[in-house]
């Protein structure tokens, strides 16, 4: 990552962390929708600084939200999911977003019943996949709008 990309990295980390911690919480079944996850699709436009920024942002958000150590593994799975979006950006960003939903949804289905024992596995799976689907697809639609003005993936790494 070049020095000039540091700003993009920080802005994405801030958007995730502040969007999750600072904005009002939206509950969806057993899970709380994380507004900070909406920009995930923008990885296709802004590249690796956005991948690293969103991963760090999730780690920071977990510092303020979660107390169980297992929750701090979430950024690892998000990182893998974001890499999927990054590496598929020239073929199909939508496919990358779906891969992200599957990876993070599976992880949340496993983690949620551990962090919150009152939540059953099936309930956790349904809410996790639904929540991830809603946030990521909303982000994907925003990405489509932004991509028209900023250019196709791989042709720009955003304003630097």
């Amino acid at each position, binding site marked *: 990552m070049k*020095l*000039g990309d*540091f*700003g*993009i*990295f*920080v*802005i994405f*980390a*801030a*958007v995730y*962390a*502040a969007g999750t*911690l*600072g904005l009002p919480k939206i509950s969806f079944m057993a899970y709380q929708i994380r507004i900070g996850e909406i920009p995930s699709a923008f990885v296709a436009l802004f590249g690796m600084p956005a991948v690293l920024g969103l991963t*760090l*942002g999730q780690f*920071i*958000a977990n*510092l*303020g*939200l*979660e*107390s169980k150590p297992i929750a701090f593994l979430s950024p690892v799975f998000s990182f893998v999911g974001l890499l999927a979006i990054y590496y598929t950006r020239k073929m199909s960003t939508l496919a990358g977003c779906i891969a992200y939903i599957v990876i993070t949804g599976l992880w949340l289905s496993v983690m949620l019943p551990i962090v919150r024992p009152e939540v059953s596995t099936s309930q956790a799976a349904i809410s996790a996949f639904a929540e991830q689907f809603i946030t990521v697809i909303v982000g994907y639609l925003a990405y489509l709008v932004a991509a028209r003005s900023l250019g196709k993936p791989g042709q720009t790494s955003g*304003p*630097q």
Partner: protein
Amino acid sequence: MQRRWAQGSKLEHVAETVHGEEVEKHVPEYYEHSIWPALIAFATGIALTGLFMAFKGLIVPAGLLMMLSFAVVLIGFLYSDTRNWSSVVSKSFGRIPRDSIIGAFPVDINLTIQLIILTELLLFGGAFGMYFAIREQFTIWPPVGAPILDDFIPRIQTLILISSSVLIEWAVWQLKQGRITAFKAGLIGTTILGSLFPVLQFGFEWPHLILNGILTPATGFTGASFFLLTGIHGAHVVAGLMAYAFVIIRAFMGQYSAKNYGFVEATSTYWHFVHIIWLFLFALLWQGSRILG
């Protein structure tokens, strides 16, 4: 291409008396081989060790002597170096030609800002390390009696920092495109937004907590760590604003262009770093005061 603007008085004499190609190839800079940064850093380490020894009552005279050695080094530095400061500053401001192809600073700015960020990482890493090490000693977190902090002002501060980070990134981008007016507007906007941060922190948040007795530096570990961490961070925000003031002055002197933006980019990098530290503080000190561990 002239590089005279970076030199102190001794080498300025060389630059003015030697003409032709040799001057254009290389003029050694006054600070290139200074021993003072390393010496002051070493003396600071000695002084802190001495301070620790004196406070702990280990070997008090030796500790005091070590602190004295730092004072001697500092006086030596000030005596030998301050005479050149006015000259260096005036040259730095006044002699950078417009549209110069050289960087906005006479050294490799990338390496400089990387070293600065590294030292800041060590500083904040130490502070956060202290925080977590002591927090681990508590069986219940937050400790019994610790207040749940209202996060209204910190939310505004977070919004301010995000906005200022986006704005300075936009301003640097405008500068690289050669749009100087837009760059100046973004720069001023960033500085105004950034100025609100310490105003909110030191003018509203701290007085609100201290004067109402909600949280003071004497309120156990939570109070002490809160004011230590937010104080260090606030000082860094003020330092960033001072750097922006410097950048604004030079911007209005026409010293930045699409080819000459190194110092602006370095300042924005520092600002982004200060921003990311704030995110950790916001998560740990305000939001973290709500979760039970």
